Each structure stands twice: as C-alpha cells, then as structure tokens.
C-alpha cells in the first residue's frame, strides 16, 4: 500500500488506514540558558497502519520508538508533522473536546506494570475511568462492564479482582489490568510500548497471545513497540526498524527478518540471541561505535559511523526510503 503524499492512503475497500502519520518530528530542548541543545528524538517519520493490522516498531533505546508512541497518543505535542486517525486529521492544537475524541480512539499500554497503575486505586477504579471519562456506559452499568473487560483479559473470576489493589497483583496480572483499561475506551488503535519486556519470560508469550487474540476479535490496529526481534516477528504483519529517530527499513515481517536489507537490521539480527546461532564460533561480531548522540547527529546517514558497508556518499546526504519490494522500503545508499 503506497501512500501518496498529500492524501490519506486509500485501501482497496476505500476506507482510511487506522493510523497515518506524515513527517512526524519531535525535538526536545535540553540544557541551561546559553548552553541549549536540541535532542532530535523523532525525525520526519511517515507510516500508516491499516485497520486490523499489527505493526511492530523495533529499535534500541534512543531510536525514537517510545517518542513515536507518545507523540501519536498526544502525550507530547509533536514539533512537526500530521497525524490522521481513521482518516481524520488531528489539529496541531486540538480543543479539549477534539483531544478527548482522539484519546478515545488511540489508547496506550505501558511498559512497566509496577508503575502504570495508581497504587492508591483499585482495579475497578482504573478500568472504569475510561468508561466514565468517555461517557461510554451509564453509571449503573459500570461494574458489569468492568467485569466483562476483566473476563476478556483472563482475570477470572473477575469479581475477585474488582476491588484488589495493585500491590496484591503479580506483574502479569497488573499488565492485564492495563490492557483491560486500554480496551475500555473501545479504541481503534492501541500503542503497546514494550508491554512484555518487564515480565517473566514464561508469561510473555501468554501476554502476546492475549494481545493477538483481542486484536483479532476486535479488528484492532496494534503498534507493538519492542527491542526484541523474536517478539516482533511473532506478533506482527509488518515490521519497521528505527534508528536515530528515523525509519530505516519497513516491510512485511517475513521479508524484513528473512532478508534484512538495511545494514542496521542485519546487525540487529546477528546480535539477537538465538539458540540456532550456538557454536557459530567463526562469525566474529563486530559492532563498532556506540548508538548516536541525538543532539549531534552527523549529516547524512546516522548509521554511517558504525556501518560495515559505509561509503563516502553516506556521510554527505541522508538517503530516502526506497522501494525494494512490493511493500518493503529501505533507507540506504546501497539501494538508491
């Protein structure tokens, strides 16, 4: 699905994508007066997510993936760029009413189950809040709606969990409450920011399966943010690789993982622990340099200092995202 600049993407059914962003940029200003620096956390990111699709956003810390989620959820005001949800543009300075509308459509699941629930409020309270603030359910039906939601995230028997407090729940249970809370708003898009990275390994799969089941049954669009390549491959239809605040590669999961084109994707692939890699003593893993300093990005490709295939052109101009497959694009001089 190629999106034409200036127009929302059109699918065959003629409906708009669940989410579309164009040129999304977020800069932060840090430092004291006289010594201010600009952190370019997100630079000109454009992508779209179809209805019912799962897109994984993969990157290491500092890649901009969390900033992306926060910008789309409007927890931070983007410096530049446009956001379209279901084809509707979100104004640069939305009114309170418009913002509430946006929030109802776009929900978020947070990374740390130990701090994403208010410790002073019960499970019922946390899950019921969206119902109340978006006026989705009359007061007398609230409890029933919460029970229904807890059921859907497998916190059963739901009545037992209604009035428990977060400190009485395990990490996995807390995260389920977080999912129930996100679902309560009946959103069309969920941004899941590393929802399993702080959970025990044996629970991660259960949580990922839960998200997939819920996503399928409700035709939700899901943006799954992670640094874990295996999880990304498991969860998603498409994968986008981010580095230094930009998308470096994006395409169907099997293509991006099976035949990674961008040197950074290849590096990630080789670095990921994989039992199949066991005893590959021959392959020396060379990872030169450190992740980029977002306040002093060099001109040209941000990965150039660490790239084994670097050419002089790489340091001069930033390559564009180029088509290398039907739905697969890469930002690299090698494919210009």
């Amino acid at each position, binding site marked *: 699905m190629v999106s034409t600049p200036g127009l929302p993407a059109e699918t065959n059914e003629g409906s708009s994508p669940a989410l579309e962003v164009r040129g999304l940029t977020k800069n932060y200003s840090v430092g004291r007066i006289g010594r201010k620096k600009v952190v370019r956390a997100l630079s000109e990111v454009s992508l779209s997510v179809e209805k019912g699709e799962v897109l994984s956003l993969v990157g290491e810390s500092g890649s901009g993936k969390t900033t992306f989620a926060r910008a789309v959820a409007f*927890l931070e005001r983007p410096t530049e760029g446009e956001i379209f949800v279901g084809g509707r543009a979100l104004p640069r300075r939305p009114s309170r009413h418009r913002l509430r509308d946006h929030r109802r459509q776009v*929900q*978020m699941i947070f990374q740390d189950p130990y701090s994403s*629930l*208010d410790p002073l409020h019960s499970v019922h309270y946390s899950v019921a809040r969206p119902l109340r603030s978006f006026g989705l359910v009359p007061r007398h039906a609230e409890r029933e709606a919460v029970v229904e939601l807890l059921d859907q995230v497998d916190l059963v028997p739901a009545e037992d969990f209604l009035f428990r407090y977060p400190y009485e729940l395990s990490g996995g249970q807390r995260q389920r409450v977080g999912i129930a*809370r996100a679902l309560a708003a009946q959103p069309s898009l969920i941004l899941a920011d590393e929802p399993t990275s702080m959970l025990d390994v044996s629970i991660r799969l259960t949580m990922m399966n839960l998200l997939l089941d819920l996503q399928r049954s409700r035709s939700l669009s899901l943006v799954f943010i992670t640094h874990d390549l295996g999880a990304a491959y498991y969860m998603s239809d498409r994968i986008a690789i981010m580095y230094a605040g930009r998308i470096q590669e994006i395409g169907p999961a099997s293509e991006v993982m099976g035949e990674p084109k961008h040197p950074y994707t290849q590096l990630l692939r080789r670095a990921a622990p994989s039992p199949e890699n066991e005893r590959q003593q021959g392959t020396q893993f060379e990872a030169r340099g450190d992740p980029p300093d977002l306040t002093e990005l060099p001109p040209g490709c941000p990965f150039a200092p660490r790239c084994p295939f670097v050419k002089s052109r790489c340091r001069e101009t930033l390559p564009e995202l180029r088509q290398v497959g039907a739905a697969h694009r890469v930002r690299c001089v090698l494919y210009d």
Partner: protein
Amino acid sequence: MNWRALRHNRRAVAGALIFALFCLVALLAPVIVPYSPSDINFTPLLHPSASHLLGTTENGEDILSQLIWGARASLFVGLVSGVLISLVQLVLGVFAGYVGGGFDMMAVAVTNVFLVLPSIPLLIILAAYLQGGGLVMLIAVITITGWAWGAKVLRSQAVALRERPFVQAARVSGESRSHIVFAHVVPNMLGIMVSNFFGAALYAILAEAGLEFIGLGNINDITWGTMLYWAQQGSAILLGAWVWLLAPGFCVALLGTSLGLLNFAVDEIANPRLRRD
C-alpha cells in the same frame, strides 16, 4: 495513608494527645476559665495560690484565665494560616507543577521572589506597616511570608509524579486535568502535603507569638504572645514574676512540639523507608 501505623506510632500518639488537649481547652475556654481574662480587679503580681493557680499579672489579671484564653488565638492563627498557606501551595506548587507551561513558569518566578525575601524582616516590616491589625492581620502577614518554601517542595514532587506512567495513563484514559490532580497527584503526595500543613501551622504559631511579643500585634488582644509582651513591659524578670513570663512561653513551645511530633509521624507513615518496623 496507613491509619493503623498512625495508632502504633508513639510520637504520633503523643503529639495528637497534646494537640487535642489544647484544642479542647480552646473550645471550652469560655466555660472553664476561672475568671474573665480581661478582668483587672485582682491584686497584681500575686504568686500562685489556691484562688489564682498561676498568680496574677502586673495589671491585676488572672494568669491562668489569660493562658486558657490565649489557646484560642494560637490555635486560630495556627490552623487558619496553615490552611491558607496550604491552599496557596496547592495552586502555586502542586497545580503549577503538574500543569507546566506558562502558569508554572509564572508560579516558579513568584515563588523564587518570595523565597529570596528574608521572611523574618519581611514579617516585621509588614506587621509594622499594618500595625494594630490583630489576629487577622497576623494571619495575612504570616501567610504571605510562609508559603514559598513548601510550594517549592510540593512543586518538585508534582513534577516527578507527572512523569509517572500511571499519571500518563490517566491522561490517555481521557481524565480531565483537575481530576488527575485531585485523584492521582494529590493522593500520592498526601504525606508530604500534610507534613507541610503541620510545618506551616507551627511557623504560624511561632511567628504570631514572636510578632506579638515585640508589640506588633494588637496589644489589647489576649494571646500568649501579648502576655509575653506585657510581661516584658512590666519587667517581670526583675520583679521575680516567673510564672507570668514562663507560662505563655511554655504553652507556645508545647503546642509547637505537638505539631512537630505529628509531623515526624506523618513523615514516617508516608515514606515507608523511614518506618521503624
């Protein structure tokens, strides 16, 4: 807030009992006072005796009656100032810290100005300028000089809470700003806010007594501070009228201590790391 811990904490219990005692005395003052506190018909400078348990002043007033009556003023000034200061801190500290942006910048600027001004000289200057105003004037002056430090502390706490995931989740859940402040931010910093309140009340009581002692209050009011003023004017030390001088001072100190004890306890309860299990 952990109520059970409150009961078991000896300092809290001690502080609460003393404070409750003063409150009781202040409330029942018209009933329990042996004589009218402003009655000047008694023999002056009597030593403590059966009819005048704490003796009399140079003007012929019963000290015990004055002491009992003085509790009302101190508690009134202490509690009202405490509440007013807390309100200002709520707006210019907690709310500003959470909301950020222009309002916060303005609040920080104002807070910094008041922090830089030395409070005691300012207190004295303001009281002198508004001389003879009595308790209400004192409350105003105390509030103006006493809010800044706590506001700074509360603001930092609010800023830290603003970044916590559960607060951001509340925003994503569509909750309004004021709801988030009162349902999520304030409850999670309640310990420090209550502690600030006690600190403010303590400051108020001491400031009131101090200002009245140097004659900047309404010297015709009957408060512990004015008792000290008159005792000083009447050269109580030279005349050996110890009780007249020490009794009001002791009461100020005791009431202040009870607030301090309550403050310690709140600290321990709100900050689990300070608890002595």
